């Protein structure tokens, strides 16, 4: 079976500084993979390389066995590769409902239409509301995104990614910046994701990682340090040394 997402020999440097070094990674369909590593390990860079926000200097990215390395970010998104951002990237001046309708409109190609009214497609609105329903955001549908508390904005970020109907979903610290009293709302959503979607999650909270992930990849200084099941990682002395031992990192999310 071809992997949903496969990364082969990916390299990227910023100037003289290599930030991604010969990374190989494969996500099967329905995978639950956590990507962990100390600050500055290149986790977000790797996500940017996979989604096409950055170009690799060498290596390949394959989606369902097809080489997508040469494709633009938008083309990759249309093929079923969705992501959330570490810092919210939302249409802040629009309502939550419009954020969702926009996503569906671009997904289905409605946005190529210059004539028909955007509001005239009841199907789109209903689907958007269904997505909001499933994340308990219906009551916020008509609020502007910028008027929502940050935790709920994080949910909109996930709702948008899900509305893309992705086959592969990359979650970049979905609970970052959310007070711990509310973070369980987001983690519940993450835990309940469609089992067919292959998920890669970057997360600093080890409790979440060990609860959610079936496999863990440890990234250190841009290279894959080791991969394995949560148990293997937890009992790996070297991983403890470079990462788990450094308790001070847990609070220090990169901004």
């Amino acid at each position: 079976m071809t992997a949903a997402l496969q990364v082969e020999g990916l390299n990227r440097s910023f100037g003289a500084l290599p930030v991604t070094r010969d990374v190989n990674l494969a996500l099967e369909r329905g995978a639950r993979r956590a990507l962990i590593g100390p600050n500055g390990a290149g986790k977000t860079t790797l996500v940017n390389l996979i989604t096409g926000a950055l170009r690799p200097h060498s290596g390949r990215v394959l989606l369902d066995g097809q080489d997508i390395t040469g494709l633009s970010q938008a083309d990759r998104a249309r093929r079923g590769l969705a992501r959330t951002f570490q810092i919210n990237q939302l249409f802040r001046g629009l309502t939550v409902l419009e954020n969702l309708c926009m996503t569906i409109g671009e997904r289905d190609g409605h946005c190529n239409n210059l004539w028909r009214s955007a509001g005239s497609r009841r199907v789109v609105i209903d689907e958007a509301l269904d997505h909001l329903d499933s994340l308990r955001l219906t009551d916020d549908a008509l609020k502007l995104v910028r008027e929502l508390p940050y935790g709920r904005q994080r949910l909109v970020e996930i709702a948008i990614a899900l509305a893309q109907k992705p086959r592969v979903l990359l979650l970049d610290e979905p609970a970052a910046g959310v007070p711990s009293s509310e973070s369980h709302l987001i983690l519940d959503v993450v835990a309940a994701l469609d089992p067919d979607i292959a998920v890669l999650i970057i997360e600093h909270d080890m409790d979440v990682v060990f609860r959610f992930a079936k496999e863990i990849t440890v990234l250190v200084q841009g290279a894959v340090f080791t991969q394995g099941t949560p148990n293997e990682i937890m009992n790996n002395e070297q991983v403890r040394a470079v990462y788990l031992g450094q308790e001070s990192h847990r609070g220090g999310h990169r901004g």
Partner: protein
Amino acid sequence: MAASDTITTAQRTSTRERAADYLLGRHRFRAAEALPWLIAIAVYFIFPDRLTFGSQVLVMVMFALSLDLILGYAGIVTLGHAAFFGVGAYTVGLAAARLQWTEPISGLFAAAIAAGIVGFITGWFLLRYRGLTLLMLTLATAIMLQETGNLRSDISGGYDGLPGLTFKPLLGVFDYDLYGHTYYLYALAVLAVVFYFVRRIVYSPFGQALTGIRENVRRMHAIGSPVHWRLVTVYTIAAAVAGVAGALFTQTNAYVTLTVFDFDNSAKVMVMLILGGTGRLYGAFVGATVYMVLEDYFSKLSPTFWQFGIGLVLVLAVLFARRGLLGIFESMGRYISERKKS
């Protein structure tokens, strides 16, 4: 248990209906939207001797409307929008002076196509850039077109322009008169048609995508939007509309000079739009009208210092009406409706 379930389901359904209604009804015409058109028609009867000025206002409304598409909706900041106005103005000017093609309505189509082509080509190159780079490149486009005209002043007439152009009677029947009655109605009719197109575009899914690009371009890339093509498309459309405005300008004035490409013209239309309010269609109507009327009034009051008056109004608008004059009306409307509720 069953009863409370029914209630929550009913509640959820009503929330859903309300949310859906909001989007379903947003593009419908509202009664207040008739107001600018009624005023424009009233002007025809109340100021029959000021209609030449009136047509110039309508031309600038259309020019500002075209800028609203790209600045107000897509968030593209440009200082060279006069380029397309100028291409439209010279298309009908040159056609009339050099080719004796003086039929006005086909002239408008020719101007739209010519300006649209220039918009498409320059947009395809320029719209990869944003911010200051884009600002400089759009500015350079207008200057290059102006200098090209200057270089071949044997064709363009240079800064002396193409004076004394004559056009065929409108639809072969309505001749142009000294007071500009025909011009005014003609310009108003063209503006109405153009406005209908622009309004459809703004409320279409494509128009929504433009708003998305303005709000967060990174997110648009991430949800699979072909951002560059969207921008090139709207830039081309806005260029064509500006070209029609330029063509009307030439037709109503019966002359055209290279000053249509001036930086002044690009800046003026942006000031008008911001004064009226960007991204709300009618901002172009309010802004262009207020600006033109003030300019007319102040220049009669003091032919040397009239720009001081305009400057003062702008400073006040920037300080107290950040969302433009229409923004003030919107805030007032919201205030009144909230008072009614409580």
